[in-house]
């Protein structure tokens, strides 16, 4: 009942000996995620939490611990290199949590990424969770519940808000994907919605966007053409002043493009049930879903 990650996913945490990397690796382990390795150059041979081997290189974690998915927690100046190392090591799914990676570094990563079959989620994202099976990232596990709603969002806490509403209404999630708030990301709304659309266990979709760029508009074009499953949506930033970056590096209305109005209009044209306020995301979904 999921996309991207499940109970068989074998995760390596890069930056596992750092403060937040270690904290969240432990949280993921407590949730039941198979954290099979950590990587911190120079700390190879140590054990994390007494059981998880730490390696000097990602390739060692693949060869010796069978890691197939990476969670990147390395600080911004070194994060792009960590993602590239994961690509070189043949990691299939890379989830980059790090916020604040220079955009030039991400442009180089993206170019390289497109030459491989690997998938990158993020950066600057809360991660990916398949409730009850696998949590990779910083989201609070307990608000989720196994189910059939796929959720994709550029914002962390706004995803939690949507998850909590869906759970409180008695429904669960197949997988929740935080694609991140940066202008250059590995996976966009369209990619995530394609995954949910093709997943037999996802019955309905929530898509949360915000000002900046045209990823939501592109996803709506895809939805209009291909998606028969009910989709609810919300766009943050209707009242954001133009020309200002609203916390996320990618959340900016510039030269009249990337406005909330244009995104909401695209959603409505694609038949997406648009929540008027962030409190209505759950109920908008149920209405579209006929529940």
């Amino acid at each position: 009942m999921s996309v991207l990650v499940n109970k068989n996913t074998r995760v390596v945490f890069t930056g596992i000996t750092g403060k937040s990397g270690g904290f969240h690796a432990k949280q993921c382990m407590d949730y039941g995620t198979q954290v099979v390795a950590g990587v911190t150059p120079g700390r190879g041979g140590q054990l994390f939490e007494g059981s998880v081997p730490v390696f000097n290189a990602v390739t060692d974690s693949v060869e010796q611990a069978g890691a197939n998915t990476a969670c990147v927690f390395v600080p911004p100046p070194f994060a792009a290199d960590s993602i590239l190392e994961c690509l070189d090591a043949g990691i299939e799914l890379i989830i980059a949590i790090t916020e604040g990676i220079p955009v030039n570094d991400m442009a180089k990563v993206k170019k390289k990424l497109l030459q491989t079959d690997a998938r990158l989620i993020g950066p600057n994202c809360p991660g990916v969770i398949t409730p009850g099976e696998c949590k990779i990232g910083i989201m609070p596990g307990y608000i989720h519940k196994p189910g059939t709603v796929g959720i994709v969002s550029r914002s962390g806490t706004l995803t939690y808000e949507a998850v909590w509403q869906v759970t409180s209404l008695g429904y669960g999630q197949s997988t929740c994907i935080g694609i991140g708030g940066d202008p250059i990301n590995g996976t966009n709304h369209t990619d995530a919605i394609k995954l949910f659309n093709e997943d037999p266990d996802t019955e309905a979709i929530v898509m949360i966007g915000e000002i900046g760029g045209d990823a939501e508009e592109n996803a709506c074009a895809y939805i209009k053409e291909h998606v028969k499953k009910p989709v609810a949506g919300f766009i943050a930033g209707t009242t954001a002043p133009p020309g200002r970056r609203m916390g996320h590096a990618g959340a900016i209305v510039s030269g009249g493009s990337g406005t909330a109005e244009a995104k909401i209009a695209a959603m409505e044209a694609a038949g997406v049930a648009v929540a008027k306020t962030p409190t209505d995301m759950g109920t908008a979904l149920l209405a579209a879903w006929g529940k």
Partner: protein
Amino acid sequence: MNIHEYQAKELFEKYGIPCPKGHATDSKEAFEPCIDRLGDGLIVVKSQIHAGGRGKGTFTDGFQGGVKLAKSKEEALDFANRMLSNTLVTIQTGPAGREVQTVYFTEGADIEKEYYLAILMERATSAPVVVASTEGGVEIEKVAEENPEKIFKAFVDPTIGLQPHQARNIAFKLGFEGKQAGECAKLILNLYKMFWDKDADMVEVNPMISTPEGGVMALDAKVSFDSNALYRHKDIMAYRDLNEEDAKEIEASKYDLNYIALDGNIACLVNGAGLAMATMDIINHCGGEAANFLDVGGGATAEQVTAAFKIILSDPKVEGILVNIFGGIMQCDVIAQGVIEAAEAVELNKPLVVRLEGTNVSEGKKLLADSGLEITSADSLADAAQKIVDIVAKN
């Protein structure tokens, strides 16, 4: 981060990008020496503020134009005296305008034709793009709408950078010939080098000009930088002008808080950028107006929450506060404790509505209820927004 035109021109010179000779100063005493160091021809006097639209701007005392062409040294001096310490209002400054603290004098250039040139990181292709047009000196958005065929682009592979043939082809498309096409291509290549080396968000030269002597030069310069990359550019950091920033935003940046001042009277304090935007939106939806955007981040400490409250309350427009926290990893009782400590530390005297949800929410709500503080608690974000809007309207 934005910088001034005169700072951008300093960078241009370092990268071999031709521009008119010029000198900037923030002191009246230095006006004459600056002017004397220029040639005998026309002098352009330019107000240095970060906002665009300076040429068509108006000063609050009625003086017209933040960029003036002076025919003599005396006239240049007169213009500069009227600009310095005066407040310039342009389409981008808002009605309050911006005080001019630096004046930039440049030699007037002999213009044959004006062009547009910019380099920026394009989201759609996740790569830099060079944008050029034969229509210089006007807004590029307007050209894109009315004459899209007059805009030429070169898409750059970020791993190998802009190639000479790409720069050359742009120059030919702009109509340059012979040696002058080479000059134009060189300017474009140097501009790209600066864009990439310095992690610029965008460089815009509007206009780039050709001169009757066969030269090509940058007449204006607008450059902004990727804030995430400033850690590796001490020289660019030194260009930061705190006079161009809101005092509350400067204070917030010291505590790693994402704060943006707005025009309304309801302050908000939220964790997460998306939720913070959505909180502003819902305040508006309920008939109020947000005084700020404030994201305290996922792991806010009591110190950060206290700093956030101080910043919010230093805004005289604020008549009420909405705290909206979705406690994930950050537990609600910890946040509640932070709110209580902050409220005591800053002698909170404005109505406060708190909405907590998530981990340890009942413990958090109990702490607030037992604190003796006048806090209105709310169950959902919609409930919270309506409550603070109603309270502020009633007062």
